[in-house]
């Protein structure tokens, strides 16, 4: 089943009076259960694409279809609802909330979903245990290493049981050892049936993936294993 499909997707940023085109007609398809690596030189538009797929931004042309639903027709509120219920985003810079404990960070998507406190606490604990942080529940993310932070972020991304995980350079800020840990977790998630789209600069990473998409200057230049 096709989860995500883009048709002639375009994105331009307004800079002063000019609109600078960044995505110049992207057509791609992601099937359920895939682990797709998105590669390309810096500035080619990978993050821009991820943001649109993650409902954080809107395209300036073409369309994005998520599970048969065209995102362009949705309101801001409805987009937020999709982010909350369908998408798990993992960022390069973790984006955890330092004022809250790890447990609470992982709970947050479920708080927004208004899930009952007990159920969500149990699930958050399980998710943190699954990424090996069962002993850091009440810590603030501020007191964790980069690799640990990213593991909290992965647990958070899984909290709403998303249909797709979008990871924008999840290991970009990590050392080799942490990178391996994170990639092992990602691999395991994919083995469990999660669909993952991951931006990476490292060709090494592609060995974990089932497919690779190569971008250059706002276009897809190569698709394949």
């Amino acid at each position, binding site marked *: 089943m096709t989860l995500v499909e883009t048709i002639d997707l375009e994105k331009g940023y307004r800079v002063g009076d000019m609109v600078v085109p960044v995505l110049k007609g992207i057509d791609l398809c992601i099937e359920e259960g895939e682990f797709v690596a998105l590669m390309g030189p810096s500035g080619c538009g990978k993050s821009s694409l991820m943001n649109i797929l993650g409902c*954080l931004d809107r395209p300036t042309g073409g369309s994005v279809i998520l599970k048969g639903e065209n995102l362009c027709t949705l309101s801001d*509120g409805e987009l937020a609802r999709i*982010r909350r219920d369908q998408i798990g985003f993992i960022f390069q810079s973790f984006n955890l909330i330092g004022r809250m404990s790890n447990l609470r960070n992982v709970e947050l*998507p479920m*708080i927004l979903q208004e899930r009952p406190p007990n159920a969500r606490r149990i699930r958050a604990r399980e998710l943190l245990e699954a990424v090996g942080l069962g002993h850091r529940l009440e810590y603030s993310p501020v007191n964790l290493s980069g690799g640990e932070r990213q593991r909290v972020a992965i647990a958070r991304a899984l909290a709403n049981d998303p249909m797709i995980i979008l990871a924008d350079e999840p290991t970009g800020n990590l050392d080799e050892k942490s990178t391996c840990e994170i990639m092992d977790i990602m691999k395991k998630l994919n083995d469990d049936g999660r669909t993952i789209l991951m931006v990476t600069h490292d060709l090494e990473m592609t060995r974990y993936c089932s497919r690779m998409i190569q971008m250059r200057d706002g276009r897809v230049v190569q698709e394949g294993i």
Partner: protein
Amino acid sequence: MRPIDILEYVLLSFKSDRRRAFMSSLGIIIGVVSIVAMLSVSEGLYSGVNERFGDMEMDLINVRPGSNMGPGPGERPSFAPEEPAELDDRDVKIIENIVGVKAVYPLKSASALLSFRGDNASVRVMGITPSHHEDLKVVIDRGRFLVDSDYKAAVVSYEIAQNFFRMDISPGNRIRLYLSEEGRYMDFKVAGILKEDEDPNYAPDDCIFITHKALEELLGRDEYKYSSISIRAEDASQVEATADDVDEGLARIHRDEAYTVEPTTTRFESLLEVLNMIKYALAGIGSISLIVGAIGISNVMMLTVKERTHEIGTMKAIGATAWDIRILYLLDAGMLGLVSSLIGIILGALVSGVVGSIARIPQEVTFSSALSGLLFGVLITTIAGIYPANKAAMLDPIEALRAE
């Protein structure tokens, strides 16, 4: 988000940012303190006046010589300043015959020195016509009230009897009244003592009542004129109309002479009006400080939103809607308002207590003044929160995530 989770988020910012909470709430605290303190003090003034005048009979009319006040500002002074009218038995007769008048009490007051067992104290002497004073007859504590045939008998107020001399004055005691400037004096036998705090409102509480006849002799002047005439109207609701009739009746014999006919309630009402004005002016000052406080809150919240841009972006990225964020930050403001108002009410009660005792003003923190402090505090902080909360809600998630 569930209300409980919203609350938890708001409380989190209280815990993690106490200094911010304190700094931003200072203005509101001061505003609420002033509102509560001012309302309480003026409420106290108000009820103090009310207490003193509240038991005043609404059916009394007062006639006294002289005009009520001079020419007002911008008014031309009347061509010939009028002589104050002299009130005597002719006036009493006229008033007694006016329809709607129930009783007439001509009064003459003079100051004198009261001597009792070798001690002296200055008092007010009231000349009265005993048979008219049913109201005094019923507030006798010990002894009896004067009768018209009394001559050298006096009724003494509770205050004088109990507190003026080393020994209490009792019925049957002998007292002497000196007219200080002329060296005249006269001896009296105490007939009765009034009850505590039951002095009529036309007489002060350090007052001795004697008959007109006795006072006339004590004063020893040729002409004995009343210093005022109190009138009781038959119908309290018609007291204004009766006062007008009295005014008209007296005009016949006091042409070109100044006198004032006034229901006692008018003075009371205008006093209340002034107090009301003071009250609202004070509350207005409090409101202004609240508004200044609100601007402070708004500023501090703008800073907070700026500081938390990244956090707000994160929350939006994982699915918070604009309304989620808006409500979080509105409630943040409302909560600040609630807490600071409660602190303000407590401090306000203390302040008004201190002000009250220093300035010797009666004061009480009523439920309604505490409630208005609370309402104003919460309402104004919430309003102050609207703009920052909106700003937070409208943040673009991508831009916000890039911040920091």
